[in-house]
């Protein structure tokens, strides 16, 4: 019964995501860093929130939409965000701060979250990644006997 409720909650959350923003899949592979290094990259500002159920990462990645946003998860390398922006008019800017550069940032995650179950959505250039926490095993009481 508990499993059923949990599955329903999961389905409802996914439905809520679709309304709130466009869903971005998380790929279970390391980021192709060698390919990315050939392009100018900048790290997006991020905030990380945590509650009893999940860790939530909010990143400002203007220009991101589901098709140009890639999320990679690898046990060793951690979680990576990559957004490839289209070149404006196919030319270099006359003057600029690098507003057209790609977004890239990677970070490690604590071992108590389940990155394979992560859900991500992008809306208005803001990427939100929600990573559920694993259920922790109940503490075991070890009886001490006296001899």
């Amino acid at each position, binding site marked *: 019964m508990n499993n059923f409720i949990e599955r329903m909650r999961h389905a409802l959350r996914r439905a*809520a995501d679709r309304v709130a923003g466009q869903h971005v899949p998380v790929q279970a592979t390391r980021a192709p860093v060698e390919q990315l290094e050939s392009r100018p990259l900048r790290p997006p500002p991020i905030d990380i929130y945590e509650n009893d159920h999940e860790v939530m990462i909010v990143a400002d990645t*203007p220009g991101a939409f589901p098709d140009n946003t890639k999320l990679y998860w690898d046990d060793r390398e951690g979680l990576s965000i990559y957004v490839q922006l289209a070149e*404006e008019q196919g030319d270099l800017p006359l003057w600029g701060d690098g507003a057209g550069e790609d977004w890239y940032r990677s970070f490690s995650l604590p071992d108590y979250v389940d990155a394979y179950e992560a859900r991500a959505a992008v809306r*208005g*250039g803001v990427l939100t990644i*929600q990573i559920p926490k694993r259920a922790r095993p109940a503490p075991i009481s070890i009886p001490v006997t006296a001899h």
Partner: protein
Amino acid sequence: MTTESTALSQRQSTNLDQPEEAQVVSITPPVDIYENQDEILVVADFPGVPKDALSVRLDRSELVIEGTQEAPGAQGETRALAFSRVFRVPNTVDPNGVSAELSQGVLRVHLAKSEAAKPKRIEVRGA
């Protein structure tokens, strides 16, 4: 966003001792400027700013772009930001030919050049 996440953000906000107004941080958004023979294009990052919270105005020779993020949350790198930037615009720009669009948190302002400022091809006649 799930209910839990919303509650999470709210909890973070209420943990702050500062008054609500003090949480809004004003920053200068990164901007790129492009030019071709027809227009000057200003591209600026406005993540999380809805169209209604965005203001673009041309005041004589100054272009002013301003916006505030939709969902101010806690302290941190991304939340509760107001963006503002001012540019001096050359007099070759036609004030009636200015348009702006917001897409995926990126604002594009098109400043069309006046006809007089566009390059002209001069026909050469034979004798």
